[in-house]
């Protein structure tokens, strides 16, 4: 799915505005909201809070700041993910050509449907819901993603689960 949270490569978001001597929390409520989310996090299924944030309607997502979105995610309106240790062996070997495939909230929109080079061996990681699987660090040449405007020297490394890849 194309979620609003999937921002890589979007245009028109304006300049980056670093803040000098930025405090960790800008208001007391931000600290309280952060601490609450940490304190109650223990029993949540893996990735659940992130998924809740990803399901916030786009206009609301853009309007709220980070802490506001985290606060919103405390309202579980959608089924959550859970995790298990990976059992299945890794499906892919390093240095092959694979295509990216599945549509999921943690797969970026910009790396789908084209075959890409796959360079780095998989990091064995927990994965997705009831289907634990490996995660790979996948390298994309910047020009493969963005065309000639990108530098031929540049690349983007994305962490992708088994299900996001298929032999090309």
């Amino acid at each position, binding site marked *: 799915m194309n979620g609003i949270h999937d921002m890589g490569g979007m245009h028109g978001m304006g300049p*980056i*505005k670093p*803040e000098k001597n930025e405090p960790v929390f800008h208001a007391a409520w931000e600290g*309280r909201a*952060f*601490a609450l989310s940490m304190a109650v996090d223990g029993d949540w299924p893996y990735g659940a809070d992130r998924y809740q944030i990803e399901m916030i309607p786009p206009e609301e997502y853009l309007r709220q700041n980070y802490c506001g979105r985290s606060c919103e995610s405390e309202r579980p309106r959608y089924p959550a993910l859970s995790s298990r240790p990976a059992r299945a062996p890794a499906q892919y070997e390093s240095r092959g050509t694979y295509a990216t495939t599945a549509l999921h909230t*943690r797969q970026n929109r910009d790396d789908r449907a084209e075959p890409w080079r796959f360079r780095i061996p998989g990091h064995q*990681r927990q994965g997705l819901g009831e289907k634990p699987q490996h995660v790979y660090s996948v390298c994309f040449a910047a020009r493969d993603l*963005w065309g000639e405007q990108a530098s031929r020297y540049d690349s*983007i490394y994305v962490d992708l689960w088994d299900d996001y890849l298929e032999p090309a």
Partner: protein
Amino acid sequence: MTTNRRDFLTAAVTVAGAAVTPDLSHAHDHDHEHQAVPSDPTLRVKALESLLVEKGLVDRSALDALIDTYEHKVGPRNGARVVARAWADPVYRQRLLSNADAAIAELGYGGLQGEHMVVVENTPKVHNLVVCTLCSCYPWPVLGLPPVWYKSAPYRSRAVIDPRGVLREFGLELADDVEVRVWDSTAELRYLVLPERPAGTEKMSEEEVAALVTRDSMVGVGKVTTPAQGVRA
């Protein structure tokens, strides 16, 4: 006058109600729309906290301790010590690049949002930049909580499509033939950039060079400079 508090409130509400809502159907519309307006976050968080404390799910002193930890104990100074150690000790540097979790744990850092660390090394020909385009994944144990710009739409959207433009915005101009590697933390791996040690710091102690290492240099939007270089820049 013997009007009690309840009577007074009833009267006040009736008068107010009469003034704004001539009939009940409008009163319903009003209520409905009112709920769509976002509440003040302060009130909302306070209400959430009270509720969780009341239900015994959260201990207020734990919240205070969490805030104190992330305001004062966990932050980029931790990462700076890791970087300074890697600069001082080539064997540690190798350990850090091959097994970051263990090497970082040697200095006593680890935990939430830093369980699976990868350290990427800058060289004269390679510059690394870290982003999380999907949210704001960031290596907390070594850098603390991310700054607002890291979590913002402008950085998340542009770091992957125009990394050199982003770096320019941070005052860093790279030569055309320097390879830029952008690391998008889309899963559970967290990245830390090992910046280049600035020239002229060879005689400085580990502690002294650690003081030069900035958060930005460990995200990859800056380089480490000496005070003299800083003035020149």
